[in-house]
């Protein structure tokens, strides 16, 4: 029987070629582009300040007309004007700010005593909002009319 050499062949060259194959480059490019897009969005959005109402009020002059996000709880019954704008007040840590919202209608959950995150800027002493998002706590209670009255009601609320 013939002698057969079964010594493993040197795969170094194959591997180097393989890692640079068009298929490999395409796959890794797609993944890197997707990751780059997500990170770009994250960093762009991270530049928008996220402040509580008390901080936003204290830093009003420094913020100027800079766009930022403000977190607080709605403390007045939202009032819709003829031009479609929505007026309400938000509070956090004992500080309150008047808000005029001119963007899209908020979630159906938006009402008095709701914790919200609003995005916009100071226009004189009023916060002009372009986006209202409703923040939910980590409390989940089964629907019950009696408890509804007490849900999320902050101290000093006029609702």
């Amino acid at each position: 029987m013939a002698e057969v050499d079964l010594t493993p062949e040197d795969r170094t060259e194959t591997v180097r070629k393989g890692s640079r194959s068009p298929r490999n480059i395409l796959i890794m490019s797609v993944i890197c582009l997707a990751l780059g897009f997500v990170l770009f969005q994250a960093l762009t959005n991270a530049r928008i300040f996220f402040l509580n109402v008390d901080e936003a009020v204290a830093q009003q002059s420094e913020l100027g007309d800079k766009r930022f996000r403000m977190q607080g709880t709605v403390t007045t019954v939202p009032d819709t004007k003829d031009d479609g704008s929505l007026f309400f007040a938000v509070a956090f840590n004992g500080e309150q700010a008047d808000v005029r919202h001119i963007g899209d209608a908020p979630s159906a959950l938006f009402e008095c005593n709701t914790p919200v995150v609003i995005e916009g800027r100071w226009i004189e002493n009023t916060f002009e909002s372009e986006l209202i998002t409703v923040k939910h706590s980590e409390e989940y209670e089964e629907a019950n009319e009696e408890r509804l009255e007490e849900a999320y009601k902050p101290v000093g609320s006029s609702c």
Partner: protein
Amino acid sequence: MTDTKLEIGHELSSGGLTTTGTGSKVTKVLGVAALVAIGLQLLFGLYYSGPEVVQGEAVRLFYVHVPSVLTAYLGFGITLVASIIYLRKGSQFWDLVAGSAAEIAVLFCAFTLFTGAVWGKPTWGVYWQWDPRLTSTTVMFVMYLGYLAVRRLDLEPRVRSRRAAVLGIVSFLNVIIVHYSVDWWRGLHQQATFGVDTKLDGLMLFSFFLGLVAFTVVFAWLLIHRFRVSWLEHQLRLARLDEALVERRAEGTIDGTTGAIS
């Protein structure tokens, strides 16, 4: 694989094996348990539990959203452990376990992102926002897609497995970032579900745990099947290699040469 590694593998797929397919007695029992658990999850999630005081019916998404992300964490955790063991021992078994767990975890991560977006619209008012929790979860999803992509690169198998194992370990940092993102940065997303302020009414808590149990059993069942598919793929590669060797031997004999076969 050595005999020792095969024994470890036997634990994963203990029970009788069918001659075709990836089923066995163990998977049949797990499969029935998974179906029953999913049936109960649907019954409690959609029927027995009531609407929430603020969110209304939308709270039902909680029973699939949070169990999905916890199941994804479990899968990524298995990938981490299996990758570390692979790098230490170089066993094919752990490489296949790591890849199988990651694939299923990515599926559950996709469920998390989708149900989160669908839940966000009726509650937050938007499907999506580049909030720290949402962004870090998306980064985690894309990085593990990258991990799965590395496993499919045209490379020498051992090089590919080593690179995948390193990525499988590094990517787990995302799980930590995702989990603590709500504490480290301000955002729209609520705090961790089981933090100090968490409150879940009786049947809601039960429905959530039912969802978690159901998804964990489904994960275990899928992991065994996915591992066996990977194992069969590995066996098929070896079989083809053996065939090629036999052909090369045959060529050498027929030629009657005494030199090496190139």
